[in-house]
């Protein structure tokens, strides 16, 4: 199994979700996160003073898929989340040791 974590621009969530569900991915987890990469932050103004917002709001999408689907899902996310501008985000893939479906106790890929 592979765990794929994609940090994307918030407004790209629908595109990524549709790409994944279209490919038969049954579930995913989304969280609101903040961070920066090469984009760095941006400056905002408040009552005459500028301040830097270092940590920009992003969404993190987590999907766990069988090994053989890993490459395909990675490509789907990268395509769906892309605008071509700086700050599009990153996708990380890690091998996953175990999974369990809490309701039934199924384990491994059958739990996905």
């Amino acid at each position, binding site marked *: 199994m592979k765990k794929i974590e994609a940090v994307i621009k918030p407004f790209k969530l629908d595109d990524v979700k549709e790409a994944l569900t279209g490919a038969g991915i049954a579930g995913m987890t989304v969280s609101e996160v*903040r961070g920066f990469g090469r984009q760095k932050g941006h400056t*905002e*103004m*408040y*009552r*005459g*003073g*500028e*301040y*830097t*917002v*270092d*940590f*920009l*709001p992003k969404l993190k999408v987590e999907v766990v898929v069988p090994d053989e689907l890993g490459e395909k899902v990675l490509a789907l996310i990268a395509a769906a989340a892309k605008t071509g501008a700086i700050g599009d985000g990153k996708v990380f893939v890690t091998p996953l040791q175990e999974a369990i479906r809490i309701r039934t106790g199924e384990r491994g890929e059958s739990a996905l």
Partner: protein
Amino acid sequence: MTRRRVADSGRGWWGGAVAALLVGVMLTAGGAALAQDKPAEAPAAAPAAAAPAVAAASPADPLKTLEAKATDLKVAVDTVWVLATAFLVFFMNLGFASVESGFCRAKNTVTILAKNFVVFAVSSIAFLAVGFGIMFGDGTPLFGAQGLWFLGGADGSPATGEAYKGVYSALNWTGVPLWAKFFFQLVFAGTAATIVSGAVAERVKFGAFYLFSFAMVGLIYPVVGHWIWGGGWLAKLGFWDFAGSTVVHSVGGWAALIGAVMLGPRLGKYGKDGRVNPIPGHSIALGTLGVFVLWFGWFGFNPGSTMAADPGAIARIAVTTNTAAAGGAVAASVVAWLLLGKPDLTMILNGALAGLVAITAPCAFVSVPSSLVIGFAAGALVVLSVLFFERVHVDDPVGAVSVHLVCGAFGTLALGLFAQDQFSPGTTGNGLLFGGGTQLLRAQLTGVVAVGLFVAVAAGLFWSILSAVMGIRVPAEEELEGLDLGEHGISAYPEFHAAPAWGTGVAAPAVAPGPARVGTPAVERGR
């Protein structure tokens, strides 16, 4: 005594309305002979109309009866007007609570709301107990002395002028019951006290603010009020302040300034090199809502200060008030845009408030075009003032000093420039720009300076006493964690994890005794 009077006038209103209508119809339709039957008919037509005036009037003199009824009716209408506008001013407490909590960080929301909430309760008690007596009791030019406690003095309301027999003669110009006078003045006192809250926000001890509010409404505010509205020395000098640019706003603003200076800036507001770090408020939406509420409440504040439903005056004052607010908002947006590169909404909001504060003193004495000029000037002034106080390291999270002190003083002086005798003959006379010379302006300046000195000294004294006795600032660690947990043990948004996007810079100064906890410990501890 006053209580009974309230009941009487309530009954008299209905009786008066019905009887006046009857008399009017009969006089028009059938002439005097028919009208003379009225006393016999009226009870049948309106059994409840057993008002004393009807019984007392001679049946032979319908005009006298009509006059008495008209007077009753005027008292009733004026009382409804005064109370309705007072209720609007009460609503401004919500405005202040929203603006101040919105312009501060989420971790201090509870304590700001708590301050804004208790301050009106404190005001109600302090002003009832002694504030009103000091402000409006007959006495010396400096201090009211008679009927000091709990409005206990003799009172002849709603009689006016010479007919008024009582110890609150400074208010004998308005023909409403004493409790209406009290309530209207109370909501103003509450406003002055609540202004302080914003400037001392995010670091003042709740208990210190609580006690300061008692001193504010029980002593500082009513003394100044006595000078100006209570027949004191400034009133005799020819100083005018129609609805309180000085009495309410400057007084609140001075106490706020002294509090902010004595507390010092919030941690992280200024870098080691003196750099100004903005500390963004957590809800501009809440702040905007609050300013709308305040703008709305001002339609009670200014037009209500006629304390009589005088159609021409209240309509014009409503328009001068609104026009100044509009001018303030427009001027602030333009000035902020030019000066800062962006039309900063918090500046626009302060601009509208600046216009409102500035027009409060002159609203009844100036023309509508003048009110626009005053609003424009105040809106521009407030932006410069906010930037100025930031530079000189007076940390005022919501801009209360700039809005209320600076624009309150400006509005008071503007009265000396723009007043026109025609609007309220025999009061202010003409201001400098309308050929009245400098006399009025000099009186206004004297008032601004004298009130400033007195409030600065008195507020400084009370803040110092509190500082010595209990301390006025929370410990650094509590300030970093947020006062909501430290002062009240509750967070405003327990289901939200609030990490500021602008990071941890605010917690950086190593002033905290012991390890400063950075990030969002408030939420961790809250769970």
